[in-house]
């Protein structure tokens, strides 16, 4: 089979899986920072229990973030050696910063945070979680800087057919970067908010134990989701302002699109059609916007906090439960638009995808694609199963931060719902 097609399929599959987990990591860690800080300040035990419950869920999710991230990192060298050859001088720097500044510290902090309960001083323990959150956002920052260079190359000069870095600041000021970074981080917050709200809603629907705890996290989830959707929509529309200018073949009007494609064809050979992304590229964008607008309706649930109408009416709980998958779907659509929309370029206008792929045989590429996809999908499904099982079990005794020989706490008695009676 065609190695190029396989390498692209493999990249699309692995990144999409990676991103599903990363969204949850970024979203939940933000909620956790709020919860543990609130615990430190108010000393209320409910915040400790919330931190431990959502913290365990966060950690199960994190496992696959690392596993898929490793594949991502190696994939550049394995399948896209042309990319490191022609653009590595520029593109490699932000990725190196990501690993040194962000991942290295993040993993070290996280290990200490997990095992440091009851062992480190409270303030130190909280500082570690802040460290984990800040470095997680830093990793998103650097990887988006790298990705934005692929979308809109800046800060380089070509010598002997190879890109050399001339201006690192330009990479950070890249038009393609700022709004996209804001959009991605708030997409993660949206995911986190809907996940917390949805799982809490499930417990409230089933009238499981721990009414007080899940009532609290339902509210936190709805507020987070509201902030997230408003901001993600804002940053989303803000990208339209420049997209057509920097990537005319993706988002220019018909005239600009054809002009750019004709220009590429004239300079580099081939027909203009070779320089256009697939016809269907508008569809994922459309679906993302529809989902975004739907999710935005979550702000209308805020007034229902009054007298717990949001719980007593029950319908909002079902809505929140069924909304959980939507932001994930929107995010994948968004990436499809961003990444497929820049085709046939890996580095827009500079390096074609077909020139970046490694000189590896189709057979090897096929084995690698099938092997890693099977492995990652198995792990991902196992992981989701474990997360669902864990979320279902409830907050009686999360493994995270369990004290040695401490008795399992009694769940609070749940008040009878007034309306349902």
């Amino acid at each position, binding site marked *: 089979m065609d190695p190029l097609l396989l390498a692209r399929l493999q990249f699309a599959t692995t990144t999409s899986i990676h991103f599903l987990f990363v969204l949850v990591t970024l979203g939940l860690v933000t909620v956790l920072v709020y919860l543990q800080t609130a615990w430190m300040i108010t000393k209320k035990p409910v915040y400790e229990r919330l931190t431990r419950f959502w913290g365990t869920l966060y950690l*199960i999710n994190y*496992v*696959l973030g*690392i*596993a*898929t*991230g*490793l*594949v991502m*990192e*190696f994939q*550049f*060298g*394995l*399948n*896209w*050696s*042309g990319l*490191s*050859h022609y653009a*590595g*001088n*520029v593109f*490699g*720097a932000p*990725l*190196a*910063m990501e*690993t*040194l*500044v962000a*991942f*290295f*510290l993040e*993993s*070290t*902090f*996280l*290990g*200490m945070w*997990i*095992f*440091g309960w009851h*062992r*480190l001083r409270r303030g130190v323990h909280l500082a570690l979680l802040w460290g984990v959150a800040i470095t997680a956002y830093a990793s998103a920052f650097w990887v988006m800087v790298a990705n934005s260079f692929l979308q809109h190359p800046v800060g380089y000069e070509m010598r002997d057919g190879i890109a*050399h*870095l*001339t201006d*690192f600041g330009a990479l950070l000021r890249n038009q393609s970067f700022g709004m996209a970074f804001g959009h991605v981080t708030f997409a993660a917050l949206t995911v986190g908010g809907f996940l917390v709200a949805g799982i809490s809603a499930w417990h409230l629907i089933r009238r499981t134990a721990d009414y007080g705890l899940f009532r609290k996290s339902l509210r936190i989830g709805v507020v987070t989701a509201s902030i997230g959707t408003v901001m993600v929509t804002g940053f989303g529309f803000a990208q339209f302002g420049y997209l057509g200018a920097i990537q005319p073949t993706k988002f220019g009007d018909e005239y600009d699109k054809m002009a750019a494609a004709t220009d590429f064809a004239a300079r580099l050979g081939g027909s203009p059609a070779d320089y256009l992304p697939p016809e269907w590229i508008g569809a994922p964008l459309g679906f993302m916007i529809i989902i975004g607008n739907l999710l935005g309706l979550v702000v209308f649930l805020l007034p229902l906090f009054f007298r717990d109408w949001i719980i007593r009416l029950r319908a909002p709980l079902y809505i929140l439960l069924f909304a959980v998958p939507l932001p994930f779907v929107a995010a994948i659509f968004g990436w499809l638009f961003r990444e497929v929309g820049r085709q046939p370029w890996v580095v827009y206008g500079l390096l074609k995808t077909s020139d970046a792929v490694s*000189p*590896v045989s189709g057979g090897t590429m096929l084995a*690698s694609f099938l*092997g890693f996809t099977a*492995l990652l999908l198995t792990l991902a499904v196992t992981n989701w199963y*474990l997360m669902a099982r*864990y979320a279902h079990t409830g907050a009686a005794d999360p*493994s*995270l931060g*369990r004290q*040695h020989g401490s008795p399992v706490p009694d769940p609070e008695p749940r008040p009878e719902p007034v309306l349902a009676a």
Partner: protein
Amino acid sequence: MSTAWYTLLGLFFATYFVLGGYDYGTGLLLARARTARERRAMLTAVGPFFLGNEVWLVAAVGILFGAFPLLEGELLSGLYPAVAVALAAVLTVTASVQLRSRPASERAKHAWDRVIIVSSTVAAFAWGAVLAGLLQGVPGPVLTSFVLVSGLAFVALVATHGAAFLALRLPEEGFDKIGRNLIPLALAAVGAATVAGLLSSRVRGHAHRPGVVIAGLALLILGLMVARVTLGRRNGVAFAATSLTLAVPVLLVGATLWPFSPVTGLTVADAAASGPTLRLLSWLAAPLLPALLGFQAMCWWAFRGRIDDRAPVYW
């Protein structure tokens, strides 16, 4: 400047083999544990360090990509089968160590432990194969007898190192003895790899500083002998000695090929990123290194010593 970055790259990989090495060593020694309690204790010994160990690999590859983009592409795609197997094994270890305690049933935990045993062994083997592949030069056929024997030798070294780590961390006796018994095996395997290397014309042609090879092998053997004598009496010294045996192979490969890189005919200086990129990385990374090491040291310090039944358990 490219020399400094090449050294740093070597040190990061070496540290990964030392730290990740005892993760995989512990993982494959799970096969020796008879009871669930023993397996629990072994994983508890690794617990707090596990994430901080694995991330050295991520950082090493990051340096490779940032400072030596040419090498990254050539080496990873040139050693495709070995690297792909190593990667699959590493990510399986990472996931299964962290997930094994999530299911409630002992049966499921035991099944995960078997996954850990197999993937740790494969990871150790594949890293040995990758190192041997670097020594015989890229590009070229990867799966030679030298590569396979070196893979086995690395498994033996990793297992010994894991035993030394567990002897240091666990209150139970027994791992010192396992370690001592593994050492003759490791010596034999290193000897076999040396012979296979001498027989390979590619290795002879490529490793053009035989003095370095001899010195490296001498250090390796010395480390194993010291471990053999001290295991059971001075476990700290034994652990330092087995750590040395896992750091030496990377440094040996780097130094014997110098000034060339593992890619045939390509010098390290030519393989490095261009000047502005390296300068930028130096400005950004140099001030950070002390912080990175400091936080790792804080982790080692906070969870140092033998574990007891108050040791925190999570995965």
